[in-house]
């Protein structure tokens, strides 16, 4: 492994050294470097990296020759190189495009055009890659366009329409499609250029066989239509924007079609396209419906027909943990966070999916809000303190996924000092006063009555008497008075406490290691050291001492779990 890495690194270094010569457009050097690349196709990765680095680092004037090299390798060597370059091609291309001057930009665009339709008619790079670049280019132009309009709607813009015209020229030649009518009078120049862009775009895809736009691109003079429309409907200041929007719409349609290449658009769709394009009123109406132009409520998640809607991460291509990948903008990705979860809580803005599970979660979430709000109102009545944090074991095992159970995370009742004192007392358990207190405490203990009909009438297994149930307003639950729940079984709190006490008593007096068989699962079973006495009483205090009427329901569940854990 190490040696191949070394080799790769060597090739990269060598190639980089050779690349230094390529400071101007020289065919022999490019040829030479292409041959070098072919010879070292095993080290394609290193060479691609060297070229990409070179493009990134050299001065703007020297970038184009390197791109020519890239182009040359792609066309003459191909294979692995295509795949490797494709990964970063859009980035690389735009990196050059953004820094070079106007003539160079045109040259770049010509290169791009040859990628879409290669020397032998087949695309050099897949439509996916070139489409990405095209979109980036258009976006770039759009930005200029919008800046232009901010600057007072000047008709002169800094884009290079020649590319599109040039490209379309080529394409048209190859396709034998008659050039689209161009209305190049005075201020509409830019618009028509734009429209050319649209035609180019549809033609491109037409060639790929994805989308049959033949009809409207050739039969319907789009530029005319668009101008006609902008003249008819909008004040001049909005023209640019509207045009962008039209373009956007058409792009969207195409992208939608691209997303579902298996389902070719039928005749109906095509005709609706034609309608859409021939009837300006309809177009505007459609645009309104798509929410692309004014007069709509701007809540994006409700937008239908948003160009790309990615609702699940698995729909996205794999994102590598590299700087480039992380920086790149992904169209439509934000809908993973928004559109995928259309149900929104009005109170806090949290979103849920519109499916069974999502609705249920939303309901319990709203319940939670309701309870919370009511508690807030009631807070004046009683003072609250922060509750204890949980212990390691509890934390590891605590689950609060279900919002229903989040009524209160209070694990310990903290309305008096008992719990604190008990904690202190754990260290030196003494005397009977504590025992008395314990009894008194345990008789106040309550547990939520089971809803399971089988369990409802079950008596306490120790005294065989039934439980007394009552309605608790604070918790909104039926509770059992004087009860504890240990591992799913209900006991009278007093019975349980007595049983525990007796058990310990037995242990203490006999000092036997094996514990007597006990009906109580929660009791300590095999004391390992003389510490056991202290520990077991700890259990008792720890559990019973904190059990109070005000402790909310799920605490008790946790508590019983806790008890089980402690013992």
């Amino acid at each position, binding site marked *: 492994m190490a040696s191949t890495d070394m080799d790769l690194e060597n090739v990269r270094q060598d190639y980089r050294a050779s690349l230094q010569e390529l400071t101007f457009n020289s065919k022999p050097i490019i040829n030479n470097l292409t041959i070098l690349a072919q010879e070292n196709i095993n080290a394609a990765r290193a060479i691609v990296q060297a070229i990409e680095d070179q493009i990134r680092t050299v001065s703007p004037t020297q970038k184009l020759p390197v791109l020519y090299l890239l182009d040359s390798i792609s066309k003459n060597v191909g294979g692995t190189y295509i795949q490797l370059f494709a990964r970063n091609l859009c980035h690389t291309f735009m990196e050059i495009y953004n820094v070079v001057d106007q003539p160079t930009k045109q040259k770049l665009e010509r290169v791009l055009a040859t990628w879409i339709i290669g020397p032998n008619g087949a695309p050099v790079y897949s439509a996916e890659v070139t489409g990405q670049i095209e979109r980036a280019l258009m976006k770039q132009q759009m930005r200029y366009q919008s800046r232009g309009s901010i600057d007072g709607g000047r008709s002169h813009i800094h884009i290079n329409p020649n590319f599109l015209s040039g490209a379309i020229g080529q394409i048209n030649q190859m396709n034998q499609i008659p050039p689209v009518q161009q209305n190049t009078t005075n201020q509409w120049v830019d618009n028509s250029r734009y429209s050319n862009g649209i035609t180019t775009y549809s033609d491109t895809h037409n060639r790929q066989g994805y989308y049959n736009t033949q009809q409207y691109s050739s039969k319907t003079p789009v530029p005319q239509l668009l101008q006609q429309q902008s003249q008819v409907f909008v004040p001049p200041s909005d023209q640019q924007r509207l045009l962008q929007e039209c373009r956007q719409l058409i792009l969207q349609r195409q992208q939608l079609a691209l997303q579902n290449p298996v389902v070719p658009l039928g005749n109906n769709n095509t005709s609706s396209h034609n309608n859409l394009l021939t009837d300006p009123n309809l177009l505007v109406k459609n645009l309104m419906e798509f929410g692309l132009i004014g007069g709509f409520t*701007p809540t994006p998640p409700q937008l239908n027909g948003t160009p790309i809607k990615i609702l699940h991460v698995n729909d996205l291509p794999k994102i590598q943990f590299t700087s480039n990948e992380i*920086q790149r903008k992904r169209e439509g990705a934000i809908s993973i966070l928004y559109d995928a979860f259309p149900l929104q809580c009005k109170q806090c803005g949290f979103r849920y999916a519109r499916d069974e599970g999502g609705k249920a979660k939303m309901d319990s979430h709203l319940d939670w809000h309701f309870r919370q709000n009511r508690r807030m109102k009631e807070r004046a009545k009683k003072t609250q303190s922060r509750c204890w944090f949980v212990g390691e074991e509890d934390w590891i095992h605590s689950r609060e996924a279900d919002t229903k159970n989040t009524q*209160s995370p209070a694990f310990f009742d903290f309305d008096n000092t008992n719990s604190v004192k008990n904690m202190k007392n754990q260290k030196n358990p003494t005397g009977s006063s504590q025992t008395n207190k314990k009894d008194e405490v345990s008789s106040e203990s309550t547990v939520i009555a089971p809803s399971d009909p089988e369990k409802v009438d079950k008596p306490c297994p120790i005294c065989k008497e039934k439980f007394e149930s009552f309605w608790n307003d604070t918790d909104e639950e039926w509770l059992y008075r004087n009860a504890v729940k240990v591992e799913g079984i209900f006991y009278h709190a007093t019975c349980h406490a007595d049983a525990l006490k007796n058990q310990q008593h037995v242990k203490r007096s006999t000092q036997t290691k094996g514990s007597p068989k006990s009906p109580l699962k929660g009791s300590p079973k095999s004391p390992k050291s003389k510490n056991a006495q202290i520990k077991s009483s700890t259990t008792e205090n720890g559990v019973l001492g904190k059990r109070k009427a005000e402790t909310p329901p799920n605490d008790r569940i946790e508590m019983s779990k806790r008890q089980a854990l402690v013992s």
Partner: protein
Amino acid sequence: MITLSKNQMKTTGSKVEDVSKEWILEPEHEYRFEVDFSTIVKLKLISGTAEIYGTEIGIGPEYEFSGRKIALFTWHGTCSVEYVANETPMTSYLNMHLALEQFREETKVRDEVGPKVLIVGPEDVGKTSLSKILLSYALRQGRQPIFVDLDVNEGSVTMPGTLTATPINQIIDVEEGFGSSTTTLPFLGSSMIPITYYYGYSDPGENVKLYKMLTAKLANTVKLRIANDKDAKTSGIVIDTSGLIDNIGYEIIQHCVDCFEERPGINVLKLAKSGGVVDRDKTFRRQTQMRKIREYFYGLPKFELSPCSTLISLNEVFIYRVGVALPIGIDRKVSETQLVKVEPDDSIRHSILALTSANSPDEQNDHISTLSWSFTKAIFDNGFI
């Protein structure tokens, strides 16, 4: 379109100024503002969507901020025409989230532990904000990530000076930073249950050995939880660290990595710092710490707490201190993590003590004693002398 109304109330002396203003944000723009400790700013979203550190805010309710530096961000804008905005690094943060989410999907299938993200960097670069964003996004995706806070200076979740881990399963309260309100407010229904280890200094460098030991303990606890919790397992962990990048810092970071990661292969990714990150000076930090401590005891204006005061006889409590300076001649290495009993006197007045559930804190064995003490049950003010 997103419209905001900002209502600023300035209390200067007895005078109360009330200024209201409306803002309209373009897509992918961030609205940043700083609020003094003496000022309250109320923020209301009128239309559109917006999020604060990844947590989406609702239309209608008013959000109150005081003593905070806030950045409100919107993805959606006036219309669907998008343009590339490099003004905020939110795109890369979103991509980061998406990459993590893909990772989660993968690990879910293979039933492995999800992504573990360790966020490192110097102070004031937005580490905690980034953790918030990543956690918040994960939560919105229906995940339950675990947030591990190793930043002892800030104490985002509980108190300054603690090492904390908490599962994030409920919307992060935008008004109160990370989690102050998410610490278990009784009866308030917040379900955030943190586990806390008390470190006691605001700088990991002050007792590196102890810090490392606690990190290891925390990592272990988190691992155990993840082994038990399916949701947390796929969702993974986000670890926020102290802004330490000197020698000790690297040592600590290395240690964190060793503690939390069992798998070989780590991806290191550099993310851009947001232009909106503001430097917080010492006073601001101190004020934040003070507020955190106050909040622990007294709650928030929205939900006040009254600390329980109780009289405890001094011979009922055992107070220990970790790593006190010992006379020369005794190996300092050992003492750094050892518990030393402190006789209660005036020196502990006005200090914060951590309460543990230890049954026998003075067991000789160093290991056992630390095991028991380091777990914080509650922290309370020393008001009993």
